[in-house]
């Protein structure tokens, strides 16, 4: 059942130009960033060789690439999450799902899963970009995997927050703007936290601060727990919200 919902989401997503446009534009921007980092690396390589323990390509190219990818996803996921519930509401298709013998939780998880599969494709493209470096050298696969895991987890957070905000609205544009605002707020919180020497309580709540440790290759349980809880809480809020709608009408 969950898979049927996820499959439907993907089918509708790929039948609109939006999905393809986003895939193409994100890839374009990230390739640009990738090439810029590669250029810099090649320029400073002669000097790096002189250092005793020089940073490799994974640290100088792949990690910054994934850091940028997180910001790009922060900007683009609201465009994708906006329509999840709000559009069903606007097109009066929600009764189709609600009348079927599936629970609200299954609907929400199915929608979440559908979008995560799409974003996994996007993340796979970023990973492929990094793997292309194998043509001219060696990669630190541990660091690469930690980056992929981090990007996957942070996009799960983006999707669950966007999904919840989409539950609150009947207008996809409003839902998109709301999700974008909330995510930008979380981003700003990160820079505010960074000003305070990184020790403030705000930093513990910042999405990107937790992503940073994955970006450096450090997978800590605090980060994992934070991402998991963040995703779970917003999925649960979405279920509650849709359930309440049945109660209040």
């Amino acid at each position, binding site marked *: *059942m969950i898979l*049927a*919902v996820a*499959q*439907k989401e993907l*089918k*509708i997503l790929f*039948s*609109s130009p939006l999905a393809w446009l986003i895939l193409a534009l994100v890839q374009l921007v990230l390739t640009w960033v990738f090439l810029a980092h590669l250029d810099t690396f090649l320029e400073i390589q002669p000097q790096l060789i002189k250092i005793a323990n020089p940073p490799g390509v994974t640290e100088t190219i792949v990690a910054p690439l994934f850091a940028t990818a997180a910001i790009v996803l922060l900007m683009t996921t609201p465009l994708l999450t906006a329509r999840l519930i709000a559009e069903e509401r606007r*097109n*009066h*298709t*929600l*009764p*189709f*799902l*609600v*009348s*079927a*013998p*599936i*629970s609200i939780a299954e609907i929400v998880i199915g929608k979440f899963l559908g979008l995560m599969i799409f974003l996994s494709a996007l993340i796979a493209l970023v990973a492929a970009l990094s793997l292309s470096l194998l043509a001219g050298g060696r990669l630190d696969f541990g660091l690469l995997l930690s980056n992929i895991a981090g990007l996957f987890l942070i996009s799960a957070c983006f999707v669950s927050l966007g999904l919840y905000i989409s539950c609150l609205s009947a207008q996809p544009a409003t839902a998109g703007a709301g999700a974008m605002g909330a995510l930008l707020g979380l981003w700003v919180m990160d820079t505010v936290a960074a000003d305070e020497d990184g020790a403030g309580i705000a930093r513990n709540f910042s999405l990107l601060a937790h992503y940073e440790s994955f970006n450096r290759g450090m997978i800590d349980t605090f980060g994992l727990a934070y991402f998991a809880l963040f995703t779970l809480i917003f999925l649960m809020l979405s279920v509650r919200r849709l359930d309440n709608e*049945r*109660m209040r*009408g």
Partner: protein
Amino acid sequence: MTEQIGSTAILARGLCRYFGTRVAVHDINLELRRGEVLGFLGPNGAGKTTIMRMLTGNLAPSAGRVEICGIDLLLKPRDAKARVGYLPEIPPLYRELTVNEYLRLAARLHRVESRIIRSALAKITQRCGLSNNREQLIGSLSKGYQQRVGIAQAIIHDPDVIVLDEPTAGLDPNQMREMRSLIRELGADRSVILSTHILSEVESVCDRVQIMHEGRTVFDDSIGRLKQKGTSLEESFVRLTMNQATV
């Protein structure tokens, strides 16, 4: 389940619904046997759609209970909903999908076994006159065909109870005829509840009629008895729904 025909398919007792302090539906009782077609009549805002949403699990009642084939809708929503097909007033169609894709999704969501989905699809598209439109996008279909797709998604899982909210609204006379004969056909071995504004439709399709006014049942009788008594449905409708409005 040997005694299928004649057993109660849908039962509602003391159904109430309030939106804030406004009473939308008050103390509705409803019982429908298999093989019966019930027509819901009433002015706009009488609570017909609200009742239908409650019967299909789209809206929780403020009080009362609903049973589908003896299964409590509020306690076991999953089992109960599997036996109901619902066509809302605005057909819930995904314009981006083709008829085939959409009906396949409906079948999967309603737990139709995957090995019989293909034959179910063929049967349903034939029955609803969609055989030549299976690969067309729903968004490109005319209103009449969209309505057919709406009906098809409501009956693809062979439900015991079919709830249709104004199924003939916006159709041309020919399409209306087709729709009515389809409803009669469905009503032969299932129970069908339909709401409409067309009184002649109720007389030609339904076995029983229930007139709603301001959230209450003001009339509940079988069409046969109405004909026996010689009272016309229109007379009763006007008398019952105008009177109360002026009181």
